[in-house]
């Protein structure tokens, strides 16, 4: 058993990219959890992630919490008649068999009241709360302010 664990540890890539790790919670898989660096702690941070529902029952992301921000919340960028607004999203549906992305220009977590500036290369834990599957805490990798997402293909995953 010990040998098996040792093997599992050794089998990890030499330089793991956190955002490329996959986490499982029941029928859900969660990956590509990332954020952008901020200038100072006054501006809100952002949180993006990809959630796949491999099961046959619908679920929904109903909240996020993190020690990195006093007021994390779910938002959606909506462009209506060319005007961008960011209404709160009370719940983000994760339908059975589907892949849901919190990605630039759409659904995203908004991290208001950052406890500290987010720096490129840092990471922080964030707990996702699902209506049915419950809670899971994942590490969120902070990428540069110019990042468009983690580059997992080149990270060997």
């Amino acid at each position, binding site marked *: 058993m010990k040998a098996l664990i040792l093997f599992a540890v050794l089998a990890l890539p030499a330089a793991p990219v956190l955002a490329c790790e996959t986490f499982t919670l029941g029928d859900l898989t969660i990956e590509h959890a990332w954020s952008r660096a901020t200038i100072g702690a006054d501006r809100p941070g952002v949180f993006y992630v990809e959630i796949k529902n491999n099961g046959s029952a619908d679920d929904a992301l109903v909240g996020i919490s993190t020690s990195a921000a006093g007021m994390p919340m779910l938002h959606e*960028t909506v462009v209506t008649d060319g005007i961008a607004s960011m209404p709160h999203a009370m719940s983000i549906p994760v339908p059975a068999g589907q892949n849901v992305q919190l990605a*630039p220009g759409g659904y995203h977590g908004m991290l208001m009241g950052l406890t500290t500036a987010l720096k490129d290369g840092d990471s922080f834990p964030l707990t996702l709360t699902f209506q049915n599957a419950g809670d899971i805490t994942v590490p969120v990798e902070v990428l540069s302010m110019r990042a468009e997402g983690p580059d997992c293909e080149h990270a060997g995953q």
Partner: protein
Amino acid sequence: MILGLGGVVGSVAFMLGLGALRTRDVAPTHPLLPLPVTAMDWTLTNHRGATVTPADWIGRPVMAFFGFTFCPDVCPTTLIDISDWLEALGPDADRLNVVLISVDPERDTPAVLADYLSNFDPRIVGLTGSLSEVQKAAAGFRAMFEKLPQDGDYTMNHTAGVFLHHADGRFASIIDFHEDRRFAIPKIRRILT
């Protein structure tokens, strides 16, 4: 049959009309389209502290958008896209006036804009000023913005597209926020020729 033919003739005439509208560039007085730069009236300050008026833009094509530095999603996404387009266009893009006009002048002072823009392509210029001058600039582009309270703080709703004007000030086109990004570079090339 005659009706059908009439319909075809009508639609061809309509398309020709549209074509003429496109090639001739749209009448500057259209109530819903951005004004030509020459008809705009505002005075703003750039992130280096210099005063800028519409007259300063004449002679170089303009790529402008509205945003603010406290914006977590739309504005960094647009700035990243613009930085990528400028890199793809290479030295040709040096001839562009590329501007972010802040809709949040209360927080976005020239120094704040300078700090923020240092993370993106150095050709992007930030503009800010008094609320009334920013409102005049928005009116010129037929853009809108509004301040919304948000959990003890505030955020801004604002027009998200990127406006393109020719070097002589005529309005050219808009790159919409959710438009396929492959169409952006040809649109920018059109104002560079």
